[in-house]
């Protein structure tokens, strides 16, 4: 044989690879494990089925398993990071610093008004004053343009994305009702959502019902987050301001230990001449918006929130979002900006489970999932009917989050305040009686829930069937 030594080297290399592969399949733990260095649940060995093979899911998960089950994986990851740092790559501190610098750079880059804005810079820079008189002048049944009139049919554009409005958009609240509005460039109030008094009464009753299911010191927190087209219309200078009086009206209807927050007020500062803190490609919010909201809620409760920059973030490049129509993209030039999306990694390792039946926890799932190119990257996508996050903190309190997809970016920031956070999405397509197990009050008891957070966007909120009908029933009805 020619070149026997070279052949032996090639042969041994291949043999070593095969040995590693066989070792992984035969001897490594196939279950769920936590990677301390990456703060995520490692991929367990995937379940084999015809459907998982045909869909390609088995293969994807198998690839993930081989990577995650590699012997001394954490050491390998640390080695590669250190090696990168040697060659000029970045350490973890660099990553944090760079993320912060990038955010600051973006803030600087948008200091000047966007080109589409026809508003003088001075006007746009002082929205609060402009908005204040209009806010005061908002009538319960304000004459309004149809939502999205100015910026094209934005709400309609979402209809095909599978998570469009779950409620008919009402633009006249009537007496005793509440509204969420934008203020046009001419100062006119344009009601985007109106909440009639009767609907608010139903929600108030429902919130009290939930409060009564909690321990004596349990609290209810309720937010109604504006969908992203509203943020963007402010960010790009197509509107002067926004506001909402839902918190005031609903707060008056409910008793103690129920807190209603006005997200437009919390986020007001962020919407002018700052980076877009909501999705630009679809209707969701970015972590920064969620973080600001959680921080404001925490301060109200006398808690000290963790700074946004204390968390780690992963940037997902080429993030697709869910695009608007071509005309809208041309008008607001958001497609390119939608490519990058950050997901938050909690400060301490968080273990995550799907709760299939009351006590059946399986399997652990990613906190984030790189395979998704849409909002599903948050918390590893939609997982139902319940998700449990074991946070690693020891606060002695547990929370239940009831919400739509907006809770995905929200929950990571809630982790410092609770030992366990149980989450559920009560919409019909997510809340299947065949899999959900017992009613919500049972979960509240079994998991020792202290506080409940209602986290929805305006598309799912007050007027929708979830708040008007399902939630009250889900609390005590048991259809197992």
């Amino acid at each position, binding site marked *: 044989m*020619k*070149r026997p*030594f*070279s*052949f032996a*080297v*090639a042969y041994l*290399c*291949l*043999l070593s*690879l*095969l040995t*590693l*592969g066989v070792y*992984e*399949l035969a001897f490594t733990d196939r279950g769920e494990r936590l990677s301390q260095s990456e703060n995520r649940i490692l991929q367990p060995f995937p379940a084999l089925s015809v459907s998982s*093979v*045909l869909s*390609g899911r088995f*293969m*994807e998960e*198998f*690839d993930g398993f*081989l*990577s995650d089950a*590699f012997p001394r*994986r954490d050491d*390998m*990851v640390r*080695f*590669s*990071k250190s090696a*990168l740092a040697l*060659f*000029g*790559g*970045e350490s973890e501190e*660099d990553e944090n610093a*760079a993320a912060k*610098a*990038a955010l600051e*750079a*973006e803030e*600087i*880059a*948008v200091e*000047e008004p966007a*080109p589409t804005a026809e508003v003088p810079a001075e006007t746009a820079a002082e929205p609060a004053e402009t908005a204040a008189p209009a806010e005061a002048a908002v009538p319960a049944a304000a004459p309004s343009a149809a939502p999205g009139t100015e910026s094209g049919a934005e709400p309609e554009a979402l209809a095909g994305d599978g998570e469009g409005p779950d409620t008919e958009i009402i633009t006249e609240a009537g007496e005793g009702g509440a509204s969420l509005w934008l203020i046009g460039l001419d100062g006119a109030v344009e009601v985007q959502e109106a909440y009639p008094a009767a609907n608010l009464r139903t929600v108030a009753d429902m919130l009290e019902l939930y409060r009564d299911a909690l321990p004596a010191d349990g609290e209810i927190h309720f937010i109604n987050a504006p969908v992203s087209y509203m943020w963007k219309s402010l960010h790009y200078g197509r509107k002067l301001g926004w506001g909402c009086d839902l918190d005031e009206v609903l707060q008056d209807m409910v008793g103690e230990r129920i807190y209603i927050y006005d997200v437009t007020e919390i986020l007001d500062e962020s919407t002018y001449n700052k*980076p*877009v803190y909501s999705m630009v490609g679809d209707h969701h919010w970015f972590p920064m918006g969620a973080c600001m909201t959680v921080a404001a809620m925490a301060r109200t409760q006398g808690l000290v929130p963790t700074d946004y920059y204390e968390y780690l973030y992963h*940037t997902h*490049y080429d993030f697709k979002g869910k695009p608007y129509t*071509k005309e809208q993209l041309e008008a607001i*030039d958001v*497609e*390119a*900006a939608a*490519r990058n999306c950050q997901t938050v990694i909690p400060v301490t390792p968080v273990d995550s489970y799907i709760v299939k039946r009351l006590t059946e926890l399986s399997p652990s799932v990613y906190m984030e999932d*790189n*395979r998704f190119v849409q909002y599903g990257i948050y918390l590893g996508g939609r997982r139902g009917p319940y998700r449990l996050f074991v946070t690693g903190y020891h606060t002695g309190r547990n929370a239940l989050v009831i919400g739509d997809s907006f809770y995905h970016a929200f929950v990571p920031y809630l982790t410092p305040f609770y030992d366990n956070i149980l989450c559920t999405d009560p919409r019909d397509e997510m809340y299947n009686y065949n899999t959900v197990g017992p009613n919500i009050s049972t979960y509240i008891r079994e998991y020792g829930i202290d506080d409940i957070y209602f986290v929805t966007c305006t598309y799912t909120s007050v007027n929708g069937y979830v708040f008007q009908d399902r939630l009250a029933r889900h609390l005590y009805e048991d259809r197992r």
Partner: protein
Amino acid sequence: MVFSSLTFLLLFLPTLLFFYFIVKSDRWRNGVLLCASLLFYGWGEPVWILAMIFSTAVNYYCAILLDRTDSPGARKGFLTLGAAISLGFLFYFKYAAFTVATVAGLFRLKVAVPEIRLPIGISFYTFQVLTYTVDVYRGKARVQRSFARLLLYVSCFPQLIAGPIVQYSDVMDRLGHRRTTVSGFIEGFRRFVRGLFKKVILANISGLMLERTALAGTGAELSLLGAWVSAFLYTLQIYYDFSAYSDMAIGMGRILGFSYKENFDHPYASLSVTEFWRRWHISLGSFFRDYVYFPLGGNRRGAARTALNLMIVWMLTGLWHGASWNFVVWGLYYGVLLLIERFVLAGVLPKTPKAVRWLLTFLLVVVGWVIFYYTDLSAVKQHLLAMIGLGVRGGALRRLPLVDRKLLDVLRIYTVLPLLFFIPTLPVRPALEARLGRTRLSEAAVNTATAALLAVSVVFLIGQSYNPFIYFRF
């Protein structure tokens, strides 16, 4: 399946080689290779195996039918049928949505643009299967009676997904009988490891650096130098990414007894754009030359017709890369450059100093990659303007700063790494190898380096998430 995945490295490749070399007859080896290739292709998207088999079957029968008849009309008919079905497939999956969107945009129609998923590698295998039918039609190749062998040619996993595009006439003999040698095994393995290292380290780190720079359309602040640096980094990334795949494909082909032609030959060392395209994605250039440019008449019908033919070929080359206008513009950009070189600068270029020619060529290539990178033409415009220090704000041109914060950040973190990464794009290694010759010492050094590169690549792969090759989307 991806070459740069642990599933491939730890299980697929060693297992395949074990079974491939344990059986001795070509028939059994073909069987092993075909099964492995179908598994490789179906690993990600099993359903698309059917599309590939269908496309192959159509051309298989068309070739048999055209071989059976002497009537020129019928022969042409069968050729057209095979080509139409294969290209129709390609058109449906790759260009239907683009066409609908373009037509709807032109006529302001409200039409729902279909969302069609692109089967991976369809551009490559469609062209491969077409070369078969055309070669049989031209009498350049014998008709293949064994469907399994034809399917093996089309689906052979090393080059299936991202090339090189292997012409049937180049491998038809090896489909029946292949000779594997120890030297081929060693050299193939080394080539494969080199490709793996290029992908996992050089291409992926170039990509990481690129992601840190300010890019057009993201709202980030652009600057003159920042725009050039990001374009330069993409120039590195796409070269390493694509040539890495070709290295791995050629290396594996060599192990298995195939001899694929080179697909890259240090393109960034070119002294003209014409030379660049003789060194970059050689198999695609050869395909368009043999199957489009020559049939159109090549350069034998006068200057005007030559120019037209070139523009057609380059527009198609651009479109082949993707259903997006930026690729068309990119193709036409090269068409125009080649025409200028051919008809305007033909007498000037040879007299120009080599360093100037190299620099000009390289800058033109870098500009080309900017057009290639952005699928949004407004972002292309924004980036190109930034490369001359201009930006648009409020409809008016304004001067951009020389540097931006993201660029400073990249330079702080990576310092001279981008420049270091540029060195291997030049023909340094072949020169070094030629100088050292083959001695025991050099063999030992190469063996050690191969083992080390493999180990480092595997370690880096563990911490990386899914990292497909850029050319997968074509």
